């Protein structure tokens, strides 16, 4: 063997050269969510060649990808809020109900403010948005009060509003679905800007704002220290309670924004069905994105990816023409597969078995 050749086996260095960057990439927190999303999209593209195509028509970009981003927007917005709450060891299961309240309030105010008149101007739109977001903030303050002042378990505290919220929304709507005939309102959830759906900009804006708030200020450090060890953070002088309260308020605010998007998209507000089960999808999205449910470690980008994964799943099922009655079962199976792929324990087990199999074969 000559000293020039570093290894006798030429296959080994190639695989090693390949394995090291791969391992480094796998350690990157966003690797698995990204891989999951890519696999889902690739699978769709494989079985349905038109799935990934985009086309430009009438100054708008059309295609399944745009559609997924657009439809995922409400969930992505709620997931961003949920990420912060979970990061400070909380949980908010009232987001679906808060979304319904805000959607109803917005529609109600728009209609009352003359949104149906001949020339309404933009005033009804402004009033509707303001009212919905104000109500959202109040809902968040209520949740924060129950958790922090009354000392209730987060899941129980927010359960109160989850149950009561739809009742409140029905009170506002008078038990009817409120329909809005007012073009400016429809723009929020259905309009296009520079060729892309407007909700995509809302998600991007919220994400960017939140990213800057957690990375360019000390909030990120505080949130993580509270999530990992709230007592130590308290002793170090971090205003743990104020920050936790702010997380709940912000989460409800996000639900309010999502409510605007949802009701605007269908130009109506359904107190019973708007945002139904959204809380579970949001928690799932946060989980998929790599945020620890025990608090501390969080990823905003991961949560947006999680929302995109969930919407891709739904779109896949529709695109594949799965009959509606087995739709949920198929979705459950896909979610299960995605969660397995994301589980470090499961991956370790698979790797061990593969290694054992290879060892036995050799």
């Amino acid at each position: 063997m000559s000293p020039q050749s570093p290894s006798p086996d030429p296959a080994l260095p190639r695989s090693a050269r390949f394995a090291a960057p791969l391992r480094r990439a796998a350690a990157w927190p966003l690797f698995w969510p990204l891989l999951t999303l890519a696999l889902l999209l690739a699978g769709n593209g494989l079985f349905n060649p038109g799935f990934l195509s985009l086309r430009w028509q009438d100054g708008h970009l059309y295609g399944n990808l745009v559609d997924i981003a657009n439809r995922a927007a409400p969930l992505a917005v709620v997931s961003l809020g949920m990420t912060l709450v979970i990061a400070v060891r909380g949980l908010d299961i009232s987001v679906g109900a808060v979304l319904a309240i805000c959607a109803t309030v917005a529609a109600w105010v728009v209609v009352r403010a003359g949104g149906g008149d001949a020339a309404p101007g933009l005033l009804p739109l402004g009033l509707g948005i303001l009212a919905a977001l104000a109500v959202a903030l109040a809902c968040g303050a209520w949740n924060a009060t129950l958790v922090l002042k009354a000392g209730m378990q987060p899941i129980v505290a927010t359960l109160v509003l989850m149950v009561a919220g739809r009742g409140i929304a029905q009170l506002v709507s008078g038990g009817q679905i409120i329909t809005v005939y007012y073009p400016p309102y429809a723009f929020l959830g259905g309009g296009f800007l520079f060729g892309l759906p407007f909700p995509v900009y809302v998600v991007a804006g919220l994400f960017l704002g939140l990213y800057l708030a957690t990375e360019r200020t000390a909030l990120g450090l505080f949130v993580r220290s509270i999530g990992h060890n709230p007592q130590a953070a308290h002793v170090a002088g971090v205003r743990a309670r104020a920050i936790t309260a702010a997380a709940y308020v912000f989460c409800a605010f996000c639900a309010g924004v999502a409510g605007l998007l949802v009701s605007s998209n269908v130009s109506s507000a359904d107190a019973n069905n708007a945002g139904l089960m959204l809380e579970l999808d949001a928690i799932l999205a946060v989980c998929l994105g790599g945020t620890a449910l025990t608090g501390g470690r969080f990823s905003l980008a991961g949560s947006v990816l999680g929302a995109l994964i969930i919407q891709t799943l739904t779109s896949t099922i529709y695109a594949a023409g799965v009959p509606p009655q087995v739709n949920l079962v198929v979705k459950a199976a896909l979610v299960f597969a995605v969660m397995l792929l994301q589980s470090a324990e499961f991956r370790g087990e698979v790797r061990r078995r593969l290694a054992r199999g290879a060892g036995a074969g050799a």
Partner: protein
Amino acid sequence: MPALVLEAQGLGKRYGATVALDDAGLRLRAGEVHALMGQNGAGKSTLIKLLTGVERSDGGRIVLDGRDIAPATPLEAQREGISTVYQEVNLCPNLSVAENICAGRYPRRRWGGIDWTRARAEARTLLRELNLDIDVDLPLASYPVAVQQMVAIARALGVSAKVLILDEPTSSLDEGEVRELFRVMRRLRERGMAILFVTHFLDQVYAICDRITVLRNGRNVGEFAAAELPPPALVAAMVGREVELAGAHGAAAAAGDAPALVEAEGIGARGKLHPVDLRLHAGEVLGLGGLLGSGRTELARLLFGLDRIEVGRLRIDGADVDLRHPADAVRRGLALCPEERKTEGIVAELSVRENVVLALQARTGWRRCLPRARQESLARHFVELLGIKTADIETPVGALSGGNQQKVVLARWLATEPRLLVLDEPTRGIDIAAKQEIMGEVVKLARGGMAVLFISAEIDELTRLCDRIAVMRERRKAGELPGDADGARVLAMIAGH
């Protein structure tokens, strides 16, 4: 002399590199109350864990009634006749009293069902022996802690224990409840039971115990008759005399008549601390001695705004202050290295850098984030200054050893350049080298004008470091001594004689 019931010899236990117990022993006789004394980390809990089968011993033997036993689980120990009542009542609060007493050994009916009538009757009989007549069908949680403790004892009696171990049963009881517990203990003693009693309250030891075994650093210091070991001697045996370290004691820099930096006038909180007066000057090291539970930590918590001051006044720089939150104290230049390093000190998952900047960043506020370069230079500075052994400043603090974690907490507070640094048992559970480095740094800082409140149970540390020593006893301030006071005087004051 009554017969030996239990004899343990040469018990040892190590956890990784830490030796928790190293050749310890215990002899219990029938019909005696035996105190097990020692400081935190002396090995009391480990010894009890070995006796009760929670942990297996690395060596040595346990002889019960002349027979070697090696309990592998608490249930086995219980079957052998060793029952334990822990400090935290570890029963099930949502189950009924009867269920709690009989759990694990329910009287059975013929077909395997539980005979509830007999279970209730048994529970009532056992409780009556303790002079307790309560409804055994109510959930345990509906009774006060003292009653829950009695239920735990009744449960222990139910397995017809020969040895009853009471691990700090009195720490959550008031005086009347303690008297009642003692009455029960005396009755059990008359019935020939051997009781091992663990407590931090010296007066209780002398009120009830016949003999005392003292542990220090995982070894037996000795076994004494309570009547022959006066309290100061007991404290000396517990605390021990270490080899003299390099004397850091400088000339007392603070002048007594200089204006005080912090002045506490009768501060106290109900159930935590009786009113205490305390004055602290810039540049002095004030020692705060006393046993665990004497009110040392409680005083520190009041000074730092972790608990609310209910009576009295606290002045900083001569102005009345109301500390509602540690952040208020931090803003005024106070700092506290808490006693519980793991739960209140470090954030194990965050990096050394993040842990070091946390308090400074909290004081600066969330809007003004310290630039990354400044965070790194701060972390590097303190890693070097305190000799923190870490691979990198981005290593999670949880990966560091205990002494280095403690140094990181110290660094966090030094980074805020505090005017008063409160150190609550800063050297507990860390090795002697790290101990000396930390203390040396503290003294240097004090000479630079910082005030230090140094809380320690170790007399030697106090007399070596401090300009003045205040002693706490039974949640009051027992008195103050000059820093060059003889160790024996400090001991006497801690023991209350």
